[in-house]
């Protein structure tokens, strides 16, 4: 089955601009939720108007390595201090809170799933999104990765990998759909293969992945690096893209074809 890639949004937290009309919805949101909602909004902009299918045909798969880690520590801090735990903070610390926010604000009533993996979580989510479309559960599926990390994690990384550059919080969001839609040109995902070859420990704090796009190789060193490199190529691309990601923990093979 062909699954069409109809929109891509990616950004780092420092460059994120929240659309004014989302501010009220996000007034209590942490960075993790804010990144997910803004990315989903920007990715879907115009799509639902052009494709007025029922809300249950829209859904999302959110993949993350570290989830809402800082908010988890904020809750933990209230427990060990001890101080009263904020109910809002606690509800935002649940890993699928961002998915729930996106669904609620954008009225996505289909499958909303969060998956957690230290190794290439975007591509685990992409695989599940492909299956959600192939099985007919959804017609439009946002594939999202959000990472916000935490100061504790950054300190641990410095100890275990002193030479490394700090990871920057960010988000990537793709819209995958089972029909081509109105666009004259669109990539479709012809193949996705994910192979896990080793198991995480401290190695997932020392990311070094080779991303090959049509045999041009670049090295990335953070959990969003591989998918952001691929996203940039696809946004600018006009030709087929054969992609291979080689990391210490997993390998991913992807083939995107351009359909005129």
């Amino acid at each position, binding site marked *: 089955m062909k699954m069409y890639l109809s929109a891509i949004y990616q950004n780092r937290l420092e460059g994120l601009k929240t659309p004014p009309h989302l501010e009220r919805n996000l007034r209590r949101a942490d960075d993790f939720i804010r990144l997910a909602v803004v990315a989903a909004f920007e990715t879907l902009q115009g799509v639902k108007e052009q494709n007025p299918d029922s809300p249950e045909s829209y859904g999302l798969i959110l993949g993350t390595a570290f989830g809402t880690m800082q908010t*988890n520590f904020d*809750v933990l801090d209230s427990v060990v201090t001890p101080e009263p735990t904020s109910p809002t903070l606690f509800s935002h610390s649940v*890993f699928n809170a961002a998915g729930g926010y996106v669904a609620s604000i954008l009225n996505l009533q289909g499958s909303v799933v969060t998956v957690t993996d230290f190794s290439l979580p975007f591509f685990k989510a992409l695989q599940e999104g492909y299956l959600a479309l192939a099985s007919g559960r959804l017609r439009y599926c946002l594939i999202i990765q959000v990472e916000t990390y935490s100061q504790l994690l950054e300190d641990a990384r410095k100890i275990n990998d002193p030479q490394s550059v700090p990871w920057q919080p960010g988000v990537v969001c793709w819209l995958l759909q089972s029909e081509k839609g109105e666009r004259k040109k669109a990539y479709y995902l012809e193949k996705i293969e994910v192979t896990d070859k080793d198991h995480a420990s401290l190695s997932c704090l020392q990311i070094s992945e080779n991303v090959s796009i049509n045999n041009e190789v670049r090295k990335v060193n953070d959990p969003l690096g591989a998918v952001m490199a691929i996203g940039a190529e696809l946004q600018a691309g006009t030709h087929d893209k054969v992609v291979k990601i080689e990391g210490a923990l997993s390998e991913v093979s992807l083939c995107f074809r351009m359909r005129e």
Partner: protein
Amino acid sequence: MCSLQSPDIVVSGYGCISAAGADAQESLINLVRGEVRNSVKGEGFFPGSFSAPCFVVHGKSNNSFLLSQGVNRTLQLALKCIEDALVVAGMDLRFLQGKRVGIAMGTTVGCTFHNEEYYKVWKSGGEPDNDKLITYLSSNLAERIQKILGVKGPRAVITNACASATDAIGVAKTWLEHGMCDIAIAGGADELSRIACHGFRSLMLISDESCMPFDGQRKGLNLGEGAGLFIMETESHATDRRGEIFGRVLGYGIACDAYHLTAPHPQGRGLQLAVKMALENGGLDIDDLAMINAHGTGTPANDLAEVHAIESLGVDTGTVPVVSTKGATGHTLGAAGGIEAVFTLMALNNKEVVGTVGCKQRDKAFSIEVLQHGQLAPLKGRIGMSQSLAFGGSNGALILEGVGS
């Protein structure tokens, strides 16, 4: 849907562990007895002077032959459960290692780094124990299970809050239908956590008495811990290896309320949709159901939303018993859907279902019947449903079929 061309997905092994019992059979015996094996936890678990019953696993959670160094309690519970399920399935590690084995596990607590000692040392500017960090980084549930079993195949940790395990079984069903693996181990596991105790208390969702799902006097939920899972394969794969079949996963549905982060849609909008999807996925009608294992946490809002959904779906609850098992297990969060799928399958195979532990007098405001504490009902058929609701507004439904006439 492509279910018409999809292979039948069977359950060839199952296991569960919770406060109700150290394995599936013991749990069933205690369910029938209506036993409530919780203990009151106070300071340390809950803030201030508040105390409430919690359902803690005692005894056999740490004696699995699969256990290895540096695994957290969530993994211990999962591994004990996997060991039991493999015994039921007649599979050993050598057999598994020759197959493509998918691991789909749901959890909520199990994916977080909540080591208090590490956090306190870090916060005070000290040098925390790196081993604790390594334990966290080595504890992705699906990944670590793959490593311990020595198997390769697709993996997913589903962190969909309280519907995680239901969705994990749905994910595994999809993998098998698309030929991504030969065998799948799918369900969920979660340990009791101080963070969850404090958090649910802050949301005013905890009852300070034993929980009473669907009862007119219900005050909230009790937290618990445990694990529950299926060994799943295609029917042809099970038949070829002459494995015993204990049931089928006929349908799976998932839908989102798109309503509120922590409260269900009052009419159970997403739940209704998930049930309809699951029925369509299995090529079934609502009249094909012989029982419903509800999420039934015992909170006023959850139980009412489920009642509205069940009524709107047109279930004849006079002949289709509706039950909850959380009065015997507590709410085990990411494990709940797995434990309840196992209970549902056992009920279907026994052709009778046990009433809702803790429900002494059904809420008179409810428009549907609920099978109450101490009651036992024969089932009119062998197809039943287990449903889950979650924070984030997610709803999952599994349609299961028992074996036998």
